[in-house]
């Protein structure tokens, strides 16, 4: 198939860079002639070098200064690499990527500096394994790159799932592949090894769950995140907040212009959605407070005609305070409310929060909180059918330019609890993006009546961004531990799985037993890497761990073996299990891959 594209030509002799798939790049030579038909030159943006990509057919037309370049069928050819070369290449790639991120593992970790985008930019200094992996987009060798990208994706997947554990996952994956590769090269069966790994993984996950303990108290949560935050005050703040709002509660992290970090709890229900018309405010006041209001929740923009029966309802019931939450009000409707202020009393209208499906969910939440009914004209509800009982109630409500709040809603507690249960179930099941998950968490926080807001401040923008990242990681870890418990950290939990795996090893034979032995060996690698990063000889850690009671971990700061939970060396159970599962899965894929195939096509680059 041939596809035409058109683009303006560059100046004569000027290299021209173009990014889109399967388009042949043409360089106009200084002689004015086009490049040879069978090869298409292109510039590699990463290396700055030229190369020619082979093509089979190409048609070029030009009109004046305008080139028409066409994609030719069959222009690509593949490169194939088989075992054992493929395995060696994969392992080299895995080693390179893991070497980038393993220095960040542990409380006495190191940082990685990545060169800036331009020659004049300062390097970016990072200690977040997932971000470092994400920044590394490609190795020069395409087959080693496949191994590197395997670890890159592993690190990012673990980070997105549980907020931590990327370096741990990479280290375990590397050790498994490293141990398996020579065995497979010598004739071992990778599929049987994989089977052994999977059986060992099941045992290890069960052992990790047995080691789990509750982490509920603010002080326990604070000790757990202290290593991430490196500031005791911030750790105490996170511990208190997570214990207060719960695993699913809303914690909003915002940038603050201040140089210090502060936090606050938001009482009642508050939505960042302000008034529909400032004309409804009382003169000179930026905010209106309503005492004991009736609250109307509706999904349509209201006109003055539609408001008439609603206002009459309120007047007839001697309502002195009315809050309307709707997508909008017509100008005539605003005027109507102003004119009838003497009859109704205090009247205010706030914009319905969010949009689409989330807006409807939010209004259903508000209906539960206030004891009213969400009037959904989109599904057939009619304004004419609205009765006084459809209005919600509250002790207080307030509305300003950017937000509205309800305190002491008159809703049925059972209905509110049911909305919380539904939202939590949705949160657990959803595969949605972070933003939608945060929206659901916000709704849960509002329903339970307590949300927290952290205002992150620092002396510089860069410092604030880095601090904000650490705070967000700490919140994710604390939530995970609060919900599912914690295990001894520092890699100790993995070490304590080894006795059970040795029992399994005794039961199996052949290459399956080899798979178990490989995982046993790999489980020492996180603890050893942490020790090495802290300047401690790693080889003694695994041996010593076997002599220590369960629940003990090596504190690389004090160089002592301590009760992990008491000493705050705790990892959230979900982080530990997710890192292990993901790493074994990635390693199993690597060791069972015999052939690597890569499409050789012109290097593409972005038009500068």
């Amino acid at each position, binding site marked *: 198939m041939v596809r035409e594209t058109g683009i303006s030509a560059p100046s004569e002799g000027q290299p021209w860079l173009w990014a889109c798939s399967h388009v042949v790049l043409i360089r106009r030579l200084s002689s004015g002639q086009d490049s040879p038909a069978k090869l298409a030159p292109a510039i590699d943006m990463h290396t700055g070098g030229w190369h020619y990509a082979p093509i089979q057919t190409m048609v070029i037309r030009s009109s004046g200064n305008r080139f028409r370049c066409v994609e030719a069928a069959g222009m690509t050819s593949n490169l194939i690499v088989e075992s054992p070369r493929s395995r060696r290449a994969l392992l080299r790639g895995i080693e390179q990527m893991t070497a980038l991120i393993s220095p960040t593992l542990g409380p006495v970790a190191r940082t990685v500096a990545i060169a800036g985008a331009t020659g004049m930019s300062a390097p970016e200094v990072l200690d977040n394994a997932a971000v470092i992996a994400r920044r590394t987009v490609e190795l020069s060798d395409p087959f080693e790159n496949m191994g590197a990208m395997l670890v890159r994706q592993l690190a990012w997947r673990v980070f997105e799932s549980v907020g931590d554990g990327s370096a741990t996952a990479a280290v375990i994956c590397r050790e498994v592949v490293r141990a398996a590769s020579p065995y497979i090269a010598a004739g071992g069966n990778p599929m049987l090894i994989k089977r052994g790994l999977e059986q060992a993984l099941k045992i290890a996950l069960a052992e990790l769950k047995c080691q789990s303990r509750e982490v509920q108290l603010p002080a326990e949560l604070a000790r757990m995140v202290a290593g991430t935050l490196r500031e005791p005050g911030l750790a105490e703040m996170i511990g208190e907040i997570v214990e207060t709002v719960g695993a699913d509660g809303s914690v909003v992290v915002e940038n603050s212009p201040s140089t210090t970090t502060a936090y606050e709890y938001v009482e009642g229900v508050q939505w960042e959605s302000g008034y529909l018309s400032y004309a409804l405010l009382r003169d000179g006041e930026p905010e209106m407070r309503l005492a004991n209001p009736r609250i109307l929740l509706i999904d349509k923009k209201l006109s003055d005609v539609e408001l008439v029966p609603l206002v009459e309802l309120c007047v007839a019931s001697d309502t002195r305070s009315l809050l309307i939450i709707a997508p909008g009000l017509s100008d005539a409707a605003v005027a109507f409310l102003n004119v009838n202020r003497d009859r109704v009393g205090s009247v205010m209208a706030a914009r319905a929060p969010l949009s689409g499906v989330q807006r409807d969910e939010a209004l259903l939440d508000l209906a539960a909180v206030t004891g009213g009914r969400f009037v959904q004209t989109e599904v057939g509800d009619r304004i004419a059918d609205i009765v006084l009982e459809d209005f919600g109630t509250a002790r207080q409500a307030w509305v300003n330019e950017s937000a509205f709040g309800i305190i002491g809603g008159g809703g049925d507690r*059972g209905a509110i609890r049911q909305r919380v249960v539904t939202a939590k179930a949705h949160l657990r099941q959803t595969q949605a993006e972070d933003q939608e998950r945060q929206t659901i968490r916000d709704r849960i926080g509002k329903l339970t009546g307590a949300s927290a807001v952290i205002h992150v401040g620092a002396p510089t923008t860069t410092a604030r961004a880095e601090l904000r990242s650490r705070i967000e990681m700490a919140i994710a870890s604390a939530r995970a531990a609060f919900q599912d418990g914690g295990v001894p950290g520092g890699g100790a939990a993995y070490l304590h799985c080894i006795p059970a795996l040795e029992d399994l090893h005794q039961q199996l034979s052949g290459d399956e037993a080899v798979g178990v032995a490989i995982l046993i060996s790999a489980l020492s690698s996180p603890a050893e890497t942490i020790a090495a990063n802290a300047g401690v000889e790693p080889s003694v850690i695994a041996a010593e761990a076997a002599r220590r009671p369960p629940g003990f971990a090596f504190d690389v700061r004090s160089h002592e073996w301590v009760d992990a939970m008491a000493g705050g060396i705790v990892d959230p159970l979900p982080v530990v299990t997710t890192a292990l599962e993901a790493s074994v899965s990635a390693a199993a894929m690597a060791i069972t891959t015999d052939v690597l195939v890569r499409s050789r096509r012109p290097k593409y680059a972005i038009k500068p």
Partner: protein
Amino acid sequence: MGDSAEEYPRPEAVVTALAMTQAAGGESVLFAASTAGMSRSKDRGRTWTSISPSTGLGLITALAPSVDFAANATIFAGTGDGVSRSTDGGHTWHSTLQGGQVFAVATVPGLAGDDEIPGGDASVVFAGTEADGVYRSNDGGVTWAAVNAGLLDLTVLDIAFSPAFTEDGTGFVATTSGLYRTRNGGKAWRELDLGFDEPAVQCLAVSLTFNADGLVLAGTEEHGLLRSDDAGASWRPVPKFADRGVIAVAFSPRASTVAVATDRGIAISRDQRETWIHAGDEIGAALCVLVASDGVADIVIAGLVDGGMACSENGGGWARVDPSAS
């Protein structure tokens, strides 16, 4: 019987709130708020003296002496209109928080750096209101702010705090539809699962050895007395109270005796809360209860629904006491 009021027996005053603290000399002093005003006892409730026959506060539903009463003689009272404060040991009163019924008042030590009011009271004061949740004052009652983050029910019937509040920041709030706990000094609250659907929790008591035993008692309207031994994480009903509504509960200073006022009388436990004796069925329901101790004997004092008070010393019989005696 004649037609004039003087010829009828004077009804006994109904005692609605009891409180105990230590005076300047180290001795215990008890206060009782009743329909006949404010009374005080210096002999652990055996005899009472009226100190303010007419407080002007109407019905007092809660009393809480300042944590530094020995120095400043300050008491806080929850009333039908808010919170009032006396700085002369209960003789005269001034309103400090107005706007609605207050069902519960509690004082805890203030944190370092708290503002001081004249007289040096660094108490943090919490007030539980009928419709506005919990209010907190960090300056001994001069200014107040609502602290309701996490509270879904703003009708607060009782408040109780850990004896080590300044260290653990732990407290509990009883509402008409559940029980809430704070672990951050009252900045926000989390609902606790009592195992029942929206139970009305009427009273609370936190053990004086809470740090060690995590013991909290909660009295409910329909589910009797509930007990937690893990600082509120889990709860179980106390069997002997299954068919009673619990109105008030109190620990003795020695922590070994617990008294519970039910809708049918008083129940007392003297052995670490494991066994209970319904010792006061003959005196009827009580509105409030308190346990004083002289180091040897525990004296249970109950304000009765029918008026007056009853005292029982070390499990002995009950003696009627008139709090309005001069």
